[in-house]
């Protein structure tokens, strides 16, 4: 029995149920924290098992693959599950200081746990249809979380979010139907084998493009990103932190999974499209960020621009570029979730998120300023923080391919990122508060609950930054598995011989 595969899924569901039944009592928040803590332990165990065994697979209900429900964890899945659990744990603690009684009563903690379960499920599933199911679980939970505050702005953001995600879902389902019609299977491992036998390779490319659009909406790439900045600045800060950290990355994960293992029949076409998409995503995202003045809107546009780097890694499809994409994925989740959590603390201290209307944080709360600098510099790619290595690997991969122009774009976008980070720094931290408020960290309610997760994630960023070697080696092993899915296929379908 593969407990280690199923526990990362069962624990959040259990926590969600208990938290929902206890939603009127303050215990609900603690159930969420304990659940996320146990989930973190379970995903560490899963990681240890996968590091040891390579790929592990389990068949739910004992129906053999490719017919039953398969859960698979290779290194990419395992690391994504682990990073989801880390972010989930940090945000669950942060919620103590962020989520009010009314939101808790409406079931915030239960929805949050279901969201974590949905994200984890999407990373662990071994077939396309269940990927769709987990997307739906995520979508329902995230819609609930988005509109929990019930304000006009939230509903507006929520409706845009759901409308676009439903379009993506329809495309996704249509693609699944067509692919099933062509190959007779939806199991990733089985698909990897059967797509080569499809007679009409042109049609396969069409289906591949449908998946690209469907996952592209989830990942918020150019030109399908506009739901993201419309929605991410409206909900509670805990909610936007998990959204920013995890949701778009599920789309990126799905793209990486499908376009390395399954749709590698016409790289010349599909990956060239991805390359252009990546460049536009990077540039448009960072330009959008430069035009914004709301703390969270700036960060939201940055998500888009950073997604571009990950897609770029996938588009180049060389081992080094994929290493960069995997490294970037992990680094970005930690950093981005952290920045949104900091935005929450800044809002509570200064009373707003509009950077021109707040200020004085550097003088009155220098510790917070340090905590902001770490992820902000990391995002912009300052050595020796984690973002530097992520960008370095991607740029190195473009230079190896002698794609000078793409390398130039990647570097220029990095520079622009610094520009808008400086804007937050100069306005929110450096300049005195226009109303003369001197916000001190002492005044923060539930201070420890808000500072500890932020500090923890910042320390993680520094650890990756100062000691990138094991992480790069790990990313290299992950890439090997992606480019040569033999181990994956054997783990799921058994030995073909």
């Amino acid at each position: 029995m593969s407990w280690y595969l199923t526990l990362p899924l069962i624990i959040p569901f259990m926590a969600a149920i208990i938290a929902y039944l206890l939603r009127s009592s303050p215990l609900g928040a603690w159930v969420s924290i304990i659940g996320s803590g146990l989930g973190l332990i379970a995903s560490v165990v899963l990681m240890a098992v996968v590091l040891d065994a390579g790929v592990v697979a389990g068949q739910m209900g004992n129906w053999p693959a490719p017919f039953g429900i398969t859960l698979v964890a290779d290194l990419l899945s395992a690391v994504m599950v682990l990073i989801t659990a880390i972010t989930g744990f940090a945000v669950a603690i942060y919620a103590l200081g962020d989520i009010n009684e009314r939101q808790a009563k409406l079931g915030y903690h239960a929805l949050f746990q279901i969201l974590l379960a949905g994200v984890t499920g999407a990373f662990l599933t071994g077939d396309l249809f269940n990927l769709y199911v987990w997307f739906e679980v995520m979508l329902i939970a995230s819609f609930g979380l988005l509109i929990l505050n019930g304000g006009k702005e939230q509903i507006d953001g929520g409706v845009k979010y759901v409308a676009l995600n439903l379009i993506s879902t329809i495309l996704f389902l249509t693609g699944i139907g067509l692919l099933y019609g062509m190959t007779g299977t939806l199991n990733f491992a089985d698909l990897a084998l059967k797509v080569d036998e499809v007679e009409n390779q042109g049609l396969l490319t069409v289906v591949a493009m449908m998946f690209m659009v469907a996952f592209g909406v989830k990942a918020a790439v150019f030109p399908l990103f506009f739901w993201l900045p419309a929605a991410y600045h409206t909900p509670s800060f805990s909610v936007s932190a998990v959204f920013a950290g995890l949701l778009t990355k599920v789309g990126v994960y799905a793209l990486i999974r499908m376009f390395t293992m399954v749709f590698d029949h016409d790289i010349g076409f599909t990956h060239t499209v991805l390359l252009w998409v990546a460049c536009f995503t990077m540039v448009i995202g960072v330009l959008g960020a430069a035009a914004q003045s709301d703390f969270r809107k700036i960060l939201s546009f940055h998500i888009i621009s950073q997604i571009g780097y990950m897609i770029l890694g996938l588009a180049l499809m060389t081992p080094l570029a994929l290493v960069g994409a995997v490294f970037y994925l992990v680094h970005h989740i930690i950093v981005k979730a952290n920045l949104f959590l900091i935005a929450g603390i800044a809002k509570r201290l200064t009373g707003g998120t509009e950077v021109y209307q707040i200020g004085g944080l550097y003088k009155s709360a220098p510790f917070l300023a340090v905590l902001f600098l770490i992820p902000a510099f990391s995002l912009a790619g300052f050595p020796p923080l984690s973002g530097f290595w992520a960008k370095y690997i991607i740029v190195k991969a473009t230079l190896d391919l002698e794609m000078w122009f793409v390398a130039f774009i990647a570097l220029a976008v990095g520079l622009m990122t610094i520009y808008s980070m400086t804007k937050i720094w100069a306005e929110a931290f450096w300049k005195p508060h226009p109303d003369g408020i001197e916000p001190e960290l002492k005044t923060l309610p539930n201070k420890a609950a808000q500072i500890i997760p932020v500090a923890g994630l910042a320390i993680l960023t520094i650890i990756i930054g100062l000691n990138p070697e094991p992480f790069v080696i790990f990313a290299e092993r992950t890439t090997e598995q992606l480019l040569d899915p033999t181990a994956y296929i054997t783990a799921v379908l058994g030995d073909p011989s």
Partner: protein
Amino acid sequence: MNSVILVAGARLQAVLLLVFSAYMMLRGHNAPGGGFIGGLIAATAFVVYAIACGTEDARKALRFDPGSIAGAGLGIALIAGIMAAFWGDALFTGQWLFIGATEDSKGIPLSTVLVFDIGVYLVVLGAILSITFALEDAV
């Protein structure tokens, strides 16, 4: 709405629908039906009751908060899935117990699949009712 005929009719209908929903759920194992359909029919019973007598009375008749019913249902379904592990099988593998089985008859077959179905029944009942009650309240 205040109609004596509707109230009297709704009470009768609600009872019949609830019995029918239980029948549908149990029947679902080998024939059309099951937890989802059963849950929908049971929800209809309370919706009819709510239209005739108001949501307050319907909530009282339900006794539990519909959201909690859905939560408990999800829990039951999950436990039904985990139970397979006690027999050393993969999660969500159906486990069977044949009560009074002899050589030529299978007796009364009981399974974790039925427990799962009861969970689904409660989830559907709870979810539909929390939505419709909220809508009825708003009207």
